[in-house]
C-alpha cells in the first residue's frame, strides 16, 4: 500500500466522518487545523483510495489536493534574525512551504552574515541536521555566496537547497562540491511577496524542495524503514496520550525518516521507547530515541529494516 500526501479542505460539519474514513483506509491524519467553519487535514492516504475520499467529501464541501510536502520538516535558514532578513524573505518562504504541507522551522543564525565572518555554531548545525532538508536563504552577491557557503555548509548532513539573487546557473557554479538544490533570482528583498513574478519564485523554491525530498525518499526506499513515521505517530498518540495535551500545532512532527515528539525527553523518552507497535515489537527496537537540540523534545530516528531485520 503506497501512502500519498494530500490536503483535505472542507467544512467542519461532519468532518469527523472523513477523519474516520482515512483511519479505516489505513491512512493517517498528520495535522488538523480548524479555522472557524473550515477544517484543513494534512494526511497520508492510500493512493487508490483518493477518489473515494473525494466522493465522500464532495457533499460536505470537501476538496482534496495533492500536497507533496506533507510529512516533512524543512529548516529555513537565514543569516540572522535582523531587519535585513526578516520578515521578508525568510517568513514568506517559511509560510509558503507550510501551505504545501511541510512543517517549516525558521533558523536564524547567530553569525551567518558577512562573507569573511560567517559561521555556524555546533548547536545550529545539530538543529539543522534534525530536519529533512535545509533551505539556505543567502543574499544578492555571487562573490559573497561563494565565500560564505564554504563555512555555512560545514557539518550539515541533510540536503541543502541554496537560494540567492544570482541566476540558478551561477549559483550552481558558485558552490563546490554541489549542494542538493538551487533556486536563483531570490536573494534579499524587503517587501512582501505578492506580485505574480515573486510568487513564481516561491513556487520554484517549493518545486526544488519537493524534488530534493523526492530524491531523499527514493534513497530511503532502497533500504526501507522498519516502520512508517506516520504509523509510529499514531502508536505514540495511543500509548503516550499526554502528547495530545501539548498545545503546539504539531505535537508530533512527522519527518521523512523520523518524528519529533514535543514532550520532555527526561520524562517521556522511556515510555516512547517502550511503546508497542505490534505484539513484542517496541519503538525502541525500531528507532533511536534521542534528545532533540530543539528545546527538550524527543527525536525519533527510525532505523532502516536492514539494521533491525523488522518491518512492521
Amino acid at each position, binding site marked *: 500500500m503506497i501512502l500519498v500526501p494530500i490536503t483535505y479542505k472542507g467544512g467542519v460539519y461532519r468532518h469527523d466522518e472523513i477523519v474516520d474514513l482515512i483511519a479505516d483506509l489505513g491512512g493517517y491524519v498528520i495535522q488538523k487545523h480548524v479555522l472557524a467553519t473550515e477544517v484543513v487535514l494534512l494526511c497520508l492516504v492510500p493512493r487508490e483510495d483518493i477518489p473515494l475520499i473525494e466522493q465522500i467529501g464532495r457533499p460536505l464541501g470537501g476538496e482534496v489536493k495533492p500536497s507533496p510536502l506533507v510529512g516533512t520538516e524543512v529548516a529555513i535558514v537565514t543569516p540572522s534574525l535582523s531587519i*535585513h532578513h526578516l520578515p521578508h524573505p525568510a517568513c514568506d518562504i517559511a509560510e509558503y512551504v507550510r501551505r504545501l504541507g511541510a512543517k517549516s522551522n525558521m533558523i536564524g543564525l547567530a553569525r551567518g*552574515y558577512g562573507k569573511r*565572518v560567517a559561521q555556524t555554531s555546533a548547536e545550529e548545525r545539530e538543529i539543522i541536521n534534525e530536519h529533512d532538508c535545509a533551505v539556505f536563504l543567502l543574499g*544578492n*552577491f555571487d562573490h559573497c555566496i561563494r565565500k560564505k557557503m564554504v563555512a555555512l555548509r560545514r557539518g550539515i548532513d541533510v540536503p541543502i537547497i541554496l537560494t540567492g*539573487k544570482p*541566476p540558478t546557473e551561477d549559483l550552481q557554479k558558485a558552490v563546490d562540491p554541489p549542494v542538493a538544490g538551487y533556486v536563483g533570482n531570490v536573494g534579499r528583498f*524587503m517587501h512582501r511577496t505578492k506580485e505574480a513574478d515573486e510568487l513564481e519564485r516561491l513556487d520554484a523554491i517549493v518545486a526544488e524542495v519537493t524534488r530534493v525530498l523526492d530524491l531523499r525518499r527514493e534513497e530511503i526506499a532502497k533500504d526501507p524503514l522498519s516502520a512508517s513515521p506516520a504509523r509510529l505517530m499514531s502508536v505514540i498518540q495511543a500509548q503516550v496520550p499526554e502528547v495530545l495535551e501539548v498545545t503546539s500545532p504539531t505535537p508530533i512532527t512527522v519527518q521523512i525518516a523520523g518524528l519529533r515528539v514535543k514532550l520532555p525527553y527526561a520524562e517521556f523518552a522511556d515510555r516512547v521507547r517502550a511503546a508497542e507497535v505490534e505484539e513484542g515489537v517496541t519503538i525502541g527496537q525500531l528507532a533511536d530515541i534521542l534528545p532533540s537540540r530543539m528545546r527538550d523534545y524527543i527525536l525519533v530516528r527510525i532505523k532502516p529494516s536492514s539494521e533491525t531485520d523488522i518491518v512492521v
Partner: protein
Amino acid sequence: MVLDHFVVESPEAWAVSAYTDIANDVLLDHNLARAIERLHIEIDPEYPLFIAVGTFGRLPSVVHLKDFAEVTRTPEKVTLGITDETHLAALLDQLWDRYGRNRVEQPDRWTIEIAEDTELPVAPDLIEMLVSDPSIGLVRDLIYALLAIAPEGFRVRTHHYENGRFWLAASENTLPDDLDARVRSLFSRMEAPA
C-alpha cells in the same frame, strides 16, 4: 520612488536591481522618499564596501518658541501662552533642563509659568529659543534606513551629515584609506549635470 538622481552601482548586474528595490522599499517604509533629493549607492562585494551619498531636498524648517507661543513678563514670573501643543513636550524638556522642574509650572494645557530667580533669571531672548529641529530626527531616520539597506555583515561604519548633504560608508573590514576620495568622487558623479 521619484528622486532627481537615484543610482546603484555594483559589479554584479543582479545586485544592482536587488539593491535598487531594497533602497526603494526601505526609504518608502521610513517615509524618507520625499525628503531625499539625490541618492547614489556604490557596493563593492570584493573589498567589501558600501557607500551611499546623497542630498536632502527642502528640509522642514526649525521651530522657535515665537512660532507657537506668546511671552508675558512680570517681576515674579514669565508666562508662556501656548497656541499649538505639537512641540509642547520638547519645550517642557528644554525648560526643565534650563531652569529646573521646581521653577516651571503648567497650570493648564495652554499655559506655562516660569518663576523668576535672581541667581538664574529667565533669558530675555526666551522668545527666540530653538524648540525643535526636525532635520535631527530626519538624519537619525536616514542613517537607520541606510544601515538597513547596507548588507548586514558590514559592521564597520561611519557617516557624516552637513548642510543637507550626507554620506555613509560600511564594510566588513576596516574602511579603506582612500574613503574620503571615493566619497568625493561619488558626490561629484551624483551632482554632475545629466
